[in-house]
Structures are given as structure tokens and as C-alpha cells.
């Protein structure tokens, strides 16, 4: 048997069925590392599902549940997918969680160096849009190397200089866009319409009306996270909400929605029906 990692999970070659004890004729040795193609992320492994973002009067909110799935297995159930960066920025990540961990480490190191340098070279600290532009450039550069950072990331923040909120999206292709409400993945189909409806109800389609309050924003995010839990098989009824205002970042404790599954008993193939 070939136990080299390159052969894991692969069907045995025809030769192996003849003589699996003789490596000379069965699984050939894996090529030395320097001859192998450079290993890039081909697919996400441990993944987080959709994340949501919405602007409200004086701030911005992001929401993400605490689940990291391994395929359809609910593998890790206390993962934080919201991450603060400095005093006025939060990112929320969907997609590959190991890439996200790497990203957090990288960004933390950059912010730490910026912080250290700010003592001697007094320059303004990184604004949310600075961090967003950095991420967009990073993601686009990596996709252009065919080695993507397999995430869709929302950046929410408060720009101290402009005194305004920031909300942006960037993903593994380097695609970027901004909007007053954002949702990734399945949430783009399920939650985004609800978020837009709630946002436009007050602000109007041109966004020039009054924005929703913090309470209203929390309510619509709670509602969206519940609907996503009902509809998204990769979601979990345990989530957090990050709020950024001029006063800084607050990431809530994990919370759950009230759900009602009584109707499931009546579904054919689910309940106790025999017919």
C-alpha cells in the first residue's frame, strides 16, 4: 500500500489488485516534493456558512453563526467567525475556516506593526476601507496565482475621519462590492431580500430616508438568522452579532432563536406516518 498523503482517499490502481505487497509494481512512489505540483487550495474543507451585514443609523452590524462544518458534518460548534480588527473594524468570514484563521493571524500581525509604528511615525490608524482594500488586493492577487483564499468576507466598520459607516464584500475571486445590506452564499438568496426589504422600508429605495435603528437592525438580523437556520442545512441555531459604532466594536455573546419544528411531524418521510 502507498501510504503517502498524495495517495490518501484515492482508489487503488489496477496494479495494486495484483500485488499490493510489492511496491515495485503496485502504487509507485510519490514524486519527491520538489517535483510535485505546488499544492494550492482546491476546495474548502472545514467551512462556515453565510454571513450577513447591515447598516443602521450610526453603525453597522455583522452576523455569523458558530458552526464550522466538515462537509455535511457539523464538526465544530463553537467557532467564532466574527473578528475585530483594531478599534473600529470587524470582519465576518464564510468559507474555509483554516484560510480564515490564517487571514486573522496575518491581519493581526499587520495591525500590530501599524500600532507599533504609530508611536514614532504618527499616521492615522487603518480605517475600515484601508483594511477592505488590503483584503481586496490580497484576495485578487491570490486568485491570480490560482491559489485562492477560500473565503467570502464582509468588512464592517466606522470611519472616524469621514464619520460614516462602512460595509463591503470581498471574496476568493477578488470580487468586491458595497451595499447597505450584504449577505454571502446561501444568505444572498435567503436573507438578502429580507434585509433589503427591511432597509428600504425606512430608508427608501434611494437610501436617502432615515436609517433603521440599532434595535431594528438587530431584530431583522435575528429574523434572518432564524430563517437561515430553518432553510440552510449547514447552519446552526447559535450565532453572534458584531456591532460597530463610533464608540467601537461590540461582539455579542452567542444566542439562539426560538424555533418551532412541530410541523415536521406532518411531513411525509419525516414523522411517524406509516403510509
Amino acid at each position, binding site marked *: 500500500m502507498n501510504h503517502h498523503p498524495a*495517495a490518501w482517499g484515492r482508489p487503488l*490502481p*489496477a496494479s495494486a489488485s495484483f500485488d499490493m505487497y510489492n511496491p515495485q509494481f503496485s502504487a509507485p512512489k510519490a514524486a519527491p516534493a520538489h517535483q510535485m505540483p505546488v499544492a494550492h*487550495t*482546491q476546495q474548502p474543507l472545514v467551512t462556515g456558512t453565510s454571513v450577513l451585514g447591515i447598516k443602521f443609523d450610526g453603525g453597522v452590524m455583522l452576523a455569523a453563526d458558530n458552526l464550522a462544518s466538515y462537509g455535511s458534518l457539523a464538526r465544530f460548534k463553537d467557532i467564532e467567525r466574527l473578528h475585530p480588527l483594531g478599534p473600529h473594524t470587524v470582519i465576518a468570514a464564510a468559507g474555509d475556516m483554516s484560510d480564515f484563521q490564517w487571514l486573522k493571524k496575518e491581519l493581526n500581525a499587520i495591525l500590530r506593526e501599524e500600532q507599533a509604528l504609530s508611536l514614532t511615525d504618527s499616521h492615522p490608524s487603518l480605517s475600515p476601507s484601508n483594511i477592505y482594500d488590503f483584503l481586496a488586493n490580497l484576495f485578487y492577487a491570490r486568485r491570480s496565482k*490560482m491559489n485562492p483564499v477560500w473565503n467570502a468576507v464582509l468588512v464592517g466598520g466606522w470611519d472616524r475621519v469621514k464619520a460614516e459607516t462602512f460595509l463591503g464584500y470581498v471574496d476568493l*475571486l477578488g470580487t*468586491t*462590492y458595497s451595499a447597505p445590506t450584504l449577505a454571502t452564499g446561501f444568505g444572498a438568496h435567503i436573507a438578502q431580500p429580507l434585509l433589503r426589504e427591511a432597509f428600504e422600508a425606512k430608508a427608501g429605495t434611494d437610501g436617502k430616508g432615515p436609517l433603521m435603528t440599532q434595535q431594528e437592525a438587530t431584530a431583522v438580523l435575528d429574523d434572518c438568522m432564524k430563517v437561515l437556520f430553518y432553510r440552510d442545512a449547514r447552519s446552526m441555531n447559535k450565532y453572534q452579532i458584531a456591532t460597530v459604532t463610533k464608540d467601537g466594536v461590540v461582539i455579542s455573546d452567542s444566542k439562539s432563536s426560538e424555533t418551532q419544528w412541530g410541523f415536521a411531524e406532518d411531513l411525509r418521510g419525516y414523522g411517524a406516518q406509516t403510509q
Partner: protein
Amino acid sequence: MALYAEHPASAHDAHAAGPTQHAFNPYSDNGGTILAIAGKDFSVIAGDTRQSEGYSIQTRYARKVWQLTDNAVLATNGFAADGKNFVKRVKQRLEWYQHAHHKQMPLRAIARMIQTMLYGRRFFPYYVYNILGGIEEDGSGAVYSFDPVGSYEREACRAAGAAQSLVQPFLDNQVSVGILLHFSSHRHPSICSFVPSASLRKHTIVTNDRQFPPRHDNSTRYLGVFAMEALSLALTPQIYFKNQVPEPGAAPFIPGNLPLSTVLGLVVDSFTSATERHIEVGDGLEVFVVMNKGRTTDDLLGEGQLAEGMEIEELGALGDGGERTFLVKRALKRD
């Protein structure tokens, strides 16, 4: 033999299998449409502001038309991330040029530079359709269109993107005023409901326009639903006069010579109509108008020149060329 021939090119055998095939697809299509039309001494470059992926609208406002210099505006369409980064590179090259030569790069040079930059990525292309519009050194309005790998030509007009196949034939064609009037009197109410005043106004402009000889549609042609809708709104001659024959003794048609008000009407009608017929087009319209130095602005800024619901601003000069660039904005339907 089939047993062996059927072998999956086993990654088991690294040497036989060759490099691993990457499943990752680095491209996406973000919809939207762009359009540019050249006039005698102006150029109009437009794009909608919707960015989408599949059936999802990612955002209702993402810019895809960019002012490069005082006399050049670039519209990008296709994969938004490539578009954004391509424009960034073009702007960087233009800045370097200005530092080196103390002047802005001429339009035809920008066009050639864009072709070089696109072809430089021939084997990992920017998935972007570019349309460059502006004023040439001789003062004429110009439009250059590109394919993703750099093939380019100067044209009188060009549409690209999701609704290219709807808009381009409309621009290519030319229909007689008589037929236009016929359509206009039988307009479907729902079609004209969102630009009624614009249609009527343009009608007057066109019928009063003595620059162009009256034209007749000499053939019985099939008009697609899109073209019929657009025409009923436009009430104007189009640009390339394809399949048209001038009246005996009349001057030949010259593409790229329409008055600005007519061009603006065509642009608006192209986009409102494309919005009706294509799910990836809508939300907002941005029209850049570049004018040669010294040209009158009355036909843009004059009273009643812009239909209701349109906003206009002048973009500040980047150099001292004297050309002027205006940005006209208008809402498009959001559904």
C-alpha cells in the same frame, strides 16, 4: 486493452498523471452593459450600475465607467474584479506617462496601451470587454472597442456586455421617421410610462433636425420586440444606417455625426429598453459626456435639455487640455 485504456489517469502515479488539474475557476461574470457613441466633437460613454452574479444582484451601485484623463473615459464590462484591477493598472500607467512627459496621454495612445496591456495577459486574460471613448488630438469624438485579449478598432459606436446583442443592432440600424411616428402613436402605455416626456421631446428634436436628410426604410424588415420597444421610445435615427439607402441625390450617411441630444436620447433608450429585456441590466445609469475644448455646452446644460429625473455634474479638469467631462446620472428600473 480497454481495461488499461480506461484507467483513470491516476494521481496515484504522479509522473503519468502530470500536474494536478485545478478545480478552481478564477473567473466570474458580473453582468451589466456598457455603451459608447462618438459625435463630431464629443463622445458619450455610458454604463449601468448593477453588479450581479447569476440571479443575484450583488449591488445596485457599482461603477464600471471611469474617467481616465481630460479627454478619455473607459468603460469596463465582464468580470468585475478584473475590470477594477485593470482600470487601476491603466490609471497607474497614465500617471507614469504624465510624470515622464508632462502631458496627458493622447486617446489613440491610450487605446494602443490598453491593447498591449490586454495582450500581455493573452494566456491568463483579463475577462473584461473595454470601450474607450473620448476626444482625439484632432478634436474629433472617438470610440475604441476592445475584446478581452486586446483586439481593437476605432468605431462610431459600440455596445458590450450582457445586453450587447440587444443594443448593438438597435444602434446599427436606421429607421425612417415615418415608421417611427407610426410606432409612437401606438406605443404601449406600460412601455412609455417611465420616460414619456423624454420621448416627446426627442421627437421634436429629430423631426426638426435639418442636418440629416429624411431617410426611408426601403425594405420590409423584421423588427425584434426589443428594437420595436426601443424605437417606439427613441423616435430617432440610429447610428450606422445599416441596410439603409439614402434618397436618390441625397448626401451619403455619415456615422458618428449625430447631435448630442440625439445621442443622449439613444443612450437612455438603449438602457431603459435593455433593462426591460435583460435581468442583468438596471438599477442606475451613468453617462459620461466628453466635449472637445471650446465646444458649446448649451445642448447639454441648456434649459430643458435633460429629461426629468436626470442629474448632471461636471467633473473637474485633471490636466490643462481644455476638454470638459460631464457625468449624467439617471435611475433605471430595479426589478
